[in-house]
């Protein structure tokens, strides 16, 4: 048997391991082994590739593997769990960047050999560069937004969609040029235009929509790998990339459904930047009154309840209050209170953000309830404590057809006996939408930093 046959056999094993691994990632009990199967598949694929007769020198390869592996190791080991959204964005970007570079490299090699690419190969090269570069630059902007280097708000400027369309047309034109004849200038312009396009696509997207973007970039990183597979006519790249592309698309659609919006609306809607008249500032409260509660009173209210539900949101991550929340939950449980956490699918800045945050604080995952499961329990809940969440508990989504978030599935906290909202001020959330919950009869506000408020709550609970 030739080396090529053995390598293809190894790739087949790797592809099967990826599929089984992804399948196992779908259930909490098997997820860890699924991830390990994926890693094993990757190891087999890499090891087999090193036997390829196309590889003539190992020095450069080993240097790249050592540098990248070490950086990956350090990042994975040292990153704070609160920085997970940024890290996922960076990894997405690097995957996309690598795919784009593979295509660029192939284009240069074909051109220098004077054997300019046949049209079908050239099309795949252009596509691969485009998807990979957009994934790279888009992910870097997402990283910047999540890290706070770039404004996390929706950045809007005049003729936004028109200028995006213009760049898209330019990309089409230069791709045609690149396909028609070998020209390094066409290559440079395509990379530059795709880079700009990635930035412009992500920059107008506001913080609350980040879970959609992260999931979409995840899908792109897979499609970029697939495209690189087309360029090199390599099946394992095509298969693995398609699997990731599909899983990313599924996550993206889950996120969109959780916000009752279409993908196009998320990408091009520039949501929540004063577009809607429903955004009412704290100054326009009129005769609506807000009732405050002290941590001491809240502690008594919760300690003598049967059932308490905590609704975490991005504010919990910002305040880094997850450990205090867990301590509060444990104190309440010791007093015989049933404590659960209600997780909205788009709470936070990436899919599953709140789960990661609370798991880091050692909250056992059976206490984390999904929105569909917890909503029917709300009527039997005595106190709902809302920590840094806003739009995902906004009753306007259910009963105000004029609201921009009307129709979005929410955690129906207003059906509980009491609600307590922990918030810095009455300012509207990221989507800039007023929340009638704050003024409800059964609601109390606890103003201030979530971490400080919950630390006080914990002290009060201890002294009860």
């Amino acid at each position: 048997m030739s080396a090529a046959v053995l390598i293809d056999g190894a790739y087949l094993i790797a592809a099967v391991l990826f599929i089984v691994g992804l399948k196992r990632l779908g259930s909490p009990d098997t997820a860890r082994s699924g991830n390990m199967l994926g890693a094993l598949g990757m190891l087999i694929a890499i090891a087999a590739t090193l036997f390829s007769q196309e590889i003539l020198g190992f020095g450069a390869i080993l240097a790249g593997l050592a540098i990248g592996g070490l950086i990956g190791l350090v990042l994975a080991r040292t990153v704070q769990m609160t920085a997970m959204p940024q890290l996922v964005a960076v990894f997405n970007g690097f995957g996309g960047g690598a795919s784009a570079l593979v295509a660029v490299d192939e284009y240069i090699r074909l051109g220098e050999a004077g054997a300019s690419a046949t049209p079908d190969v050239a099309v795949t090269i252009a596509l691969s560069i485009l998807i990979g570069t957009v994934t790279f630059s888009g992910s870097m902007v997402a990283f910047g937004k999540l890290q706070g280097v770039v404004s996390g708000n929706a950045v809007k400027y005049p003729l936004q969609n028109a200028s995006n369309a213009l760049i898209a047309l330019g990309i089409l034109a230069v791709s045609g040029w690149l396909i028609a004849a070998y020209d390094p200038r066409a290559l440079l312009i395509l990379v530059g235009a795709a880079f700009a396009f990635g930035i412009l696509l992500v920059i107008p997207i506001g913080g609350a929509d980040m879970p959609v973007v992260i999931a979409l970039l995840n899908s792109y990183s897979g499609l970029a790998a697939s495209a690189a597979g087309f360029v090199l006519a390599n099946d394992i790249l095509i298969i693995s990339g398609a699997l990731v592309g599909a899983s990313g698309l599924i996550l993206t659609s889950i996120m969109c459904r959780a916000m009752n919006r279409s993908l196009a609306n998320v990408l091009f809607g520039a949501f929540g930047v004063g577009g809607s008249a429903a955004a009412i500032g704290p100054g326009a409260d009129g005769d609506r009154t807000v009732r405050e509660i002290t941590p001491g009173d809240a502690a008594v209210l919760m300690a003598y309840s049967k059932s308490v539900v905590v609704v975490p949101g991005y504010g919990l991550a910002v305040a880094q209050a997850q450990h205090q929340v867990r301590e509060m939950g444990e104190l309440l449980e010791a007093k015989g209170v049933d404590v659960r956490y209600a997780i909205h699918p788009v709470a936070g800045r990436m899919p599953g953000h709140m789960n990661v945050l609370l798991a880091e604080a050692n909250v056992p995952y059976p206490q984390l309830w999904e929105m569909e499961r917890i909503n029917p329990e709300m009527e039997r809940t005595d106190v709902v404590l809302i920590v840094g969440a806003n739009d995902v508990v906004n009753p306007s989504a259910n009963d105000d057809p004029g609201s921009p978030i009307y129709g979005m599935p929410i955690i129906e906290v207003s059906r509980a006996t009491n609600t307590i909202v922990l918030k810095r001020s009455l300012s509207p959330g990221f989507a800039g939408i007023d929340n009638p919950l704050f003024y409800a009869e059964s609601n109390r506000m606890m103003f201030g930093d979530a971490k400080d408020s919950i630390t006080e709550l914990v002290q009060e609970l201890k002294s009860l």
Partner: protein
Amino acid sequence: MIEALLVSVTIFVLAMFVGFEVITKVPTILHTPLMSGSNAISGIAIIGALLVAGRLSGTLSVVLGVIAVAMAAINVVGGFLVTDRMLQMFKRKEDG
């Protein structure tokens, strides 16, 4: 040439369907690990990077290849490790 491309497209389409079938219903708790784990798999681009970096066809080509290998290696190594670290935290019971 076109026939080869068609075979590739066939593989791509079928793999997409496999992906959709395999990952139909994912509980919220696993959204992040699924994303970072599948992202590590998309680091499969490392195979392409290894091939272009290893064929030694000109300095520029090798430099680009090495950068691609390094980026993909960050994605692969970091992705699988951080996913494992995350999944380790998901426990049914404390100290479990």
